[in-house]
């Protein structure tokens, strides 16, 4: 029993070492740390939006025309929009919906894509692979934005359908990634040996092959959070995503753009907010790639 505890301890020590080495590689570029801090701040602000924003009631269908179109000031950091709502409050709430959209999209598309990729890669050379990868090709044959827009439009445009539409155009990228890795991992000796010892296919796929794909998967996931948010903002900008009065970041940019150049703050600040969050996710994703870089060799 004692030796077992020691073994567990040793395993954790190795893991800790790997983790701290990863953090060392991650933090070598200060920009990566900045990205992480910005992301944490955005996440915290979005999570606590109803408690920390100055005017939480402005997130919904609130109007106060006496305060409409005010420029940025101490009371309204980002000014107010055309019906008198605080733009800062709505940007924080916009982050809340954006992050929710990113999480839901990845929660739907990653498991589907990974599963398809694992099965197609493991069964490469059979008709299962052909069918699965051809279906993947079909979903990849139009740009993801166009497919998502078309699907969102044919369903009724709202936040939920936007999430669904983006997921439909997103999973094939994951099945491509995992497929490629599984095909090469399958040929390695540890998988061959497991097959010979009679390990079940589920065990081989989920406990042996999948953990070996985690590095690139996590990196892509982080980068994709940013791109999913970008696509959500794009859909709502066009009018095919979150509908007013929901404070979608894209919706705010579109509504504000009608009042350029006079009331520039109601469109420029939400636009900068979108750029900021995508940039932060990109920085963190690049950092993760650096952190995992040597582990793969």
């Amino acid at each position, binding site marked *: 029993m004692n030796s077992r505890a020691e073994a567990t301890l040793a395993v954790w020590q190795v893991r800790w070492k790997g983790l701290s080495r990863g953090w060392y590689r991650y933090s070598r570029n200060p920009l990566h740390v900045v990205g992480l801090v910005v992301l944490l701040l955005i996440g915290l602000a979005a999570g606590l939006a109803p408690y920390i924003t100055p005017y939480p009631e402005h997130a919904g269908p609130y109007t106060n025309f006496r305060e409409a179109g005010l420029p940025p000031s101490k009371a309204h950091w980002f000014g107010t929009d055309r019906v008198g709502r605080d733009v800062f409050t709505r940007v924080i709430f916009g982050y809340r919906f954006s992050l929710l959209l990113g999480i839901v999209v990845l929660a739907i598309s990653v498991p589907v894509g990974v599963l398809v990729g694992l099965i197609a890669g493991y069964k490469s050379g059979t008709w299962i692979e052909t069918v699965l990868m051809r279906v993947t*090709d*079909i*979903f990849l044959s139009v740009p993801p934005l*166009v497919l998502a827009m078309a699907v*969102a439009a044919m369903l009724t445009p709202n936040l939920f359908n936007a999430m669904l539409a983006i997921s439909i155009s997103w999973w094939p990228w994951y099945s491509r990634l995992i497929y490629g890795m599984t095909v090469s991992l399958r040929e390695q000796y540890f998988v061959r040996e497991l097959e010979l010892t009679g390990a079940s296919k589920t065990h081989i796929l989920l406990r042996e092959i999948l953990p070996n794909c985690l590095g690139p998967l996590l990196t892509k996931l982080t980068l994709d959070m940013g791109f999913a948010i970008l696509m959500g903002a*794009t859909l709502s*900008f066009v009018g*095919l995503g979150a509908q007013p009065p929901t404070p979608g970041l894209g919706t705010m940019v579109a509504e504000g*753009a009608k009042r350029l150049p006079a009331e520039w703050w109601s469109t420029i600040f939400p636009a900068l907010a979108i750029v900021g969050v995508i*940039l932060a996710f990109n920085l963190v994703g690049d950092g993760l790639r650096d952190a995992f870089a040597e582990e793969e060799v």
Partner: protein
Amino acid sequence: MVVYIVKRLLQSILVLLGLSLLIFFIARVVPGDPARAALGNLATEEQVERLRAEMHLDKPFFVQYYYWLVSVLHGDLGRSLYTQRPVTEDLMQFLPATVELMLFATLISLVVGQTMGVLSGYFRNSWFDGMFRVVSYVGVATPPFVIAIFLLFVFSQLLGLAPGVGRLPLTMMEPTRITGFLVLDSLIAGRLDVTLVAIKHLLLPAFSLAIAHIAQEGRITRSSLIDVQQKDYILAHQVHGIRPAKVIFKYLLKPSIVPTVTVMGMDFAFLLSNAFLVEVVFMWPGFSRYAVNAMLSKDLNAIVAVVLVIGLTVALVNLLVDVTIAFLDPTVRIRRRGG
């Protein structure tokens, strides 16, 4: 090579068939009656019933799909609810404006991207290189509609350097439509003033479309340049006293053509989808804005047609790029012949 092209063509056709099945399926399972939508609320139940029979809506799904596919192959994409005209006619009207915009954007991104890439690769680690890297990082992360709004705001509305939205000012007569490209049509009509105005209107939207690609192409040219710069034969050229400009353009830039063409092919899909947003911001009367309007008014026939046309274009461009690469890069050609 011919075998390879035929093989790729067959693959593309299969994928396109799959795409048509997918998009037609979604269009039929969504709630709502296409016949009722086409006739409006005032039509009687009898009229709707007749149109349903005409559109084969009363038959099973695969029979519907068969009839639809046959008419698509005959060039009939159905009638648009939004413009009340055949979709094919609409596409013919709106496509040239988008092609003109995308060609301009490609031209800009090639010229500017290559120049930036060469400069920042050649003067590596200088202030220019650092600035270019920051700008390209931000350029990739900024959504095209934000870039478009920002450029419109700064250059048109604040500084007044560029015209506003649209292809031509409302007061200006369009030249007779021959190709649909305003720049070409006005040249043919001998109206140089219109050509100039049309180009001015093209600049901002084309730039907004090009910025993300400038960043991408610049980065690739830069890294390829740095790669090649360390090769011995470049040093030999320099030692022999060949002028730096000649070394750059004749020997350094050549190897970066293949990755640039590859990326251009991959980027084409993104250029096309970004055109959707730029056209919305600049009220560009093109294919993408027609598509967005069709989507907003839930015009099923037009949406299906738009997706199919885009799928077809992307497939053709990818094929073209692969063939071009095979001609540019002998190693690819040989590998394909073997495999």
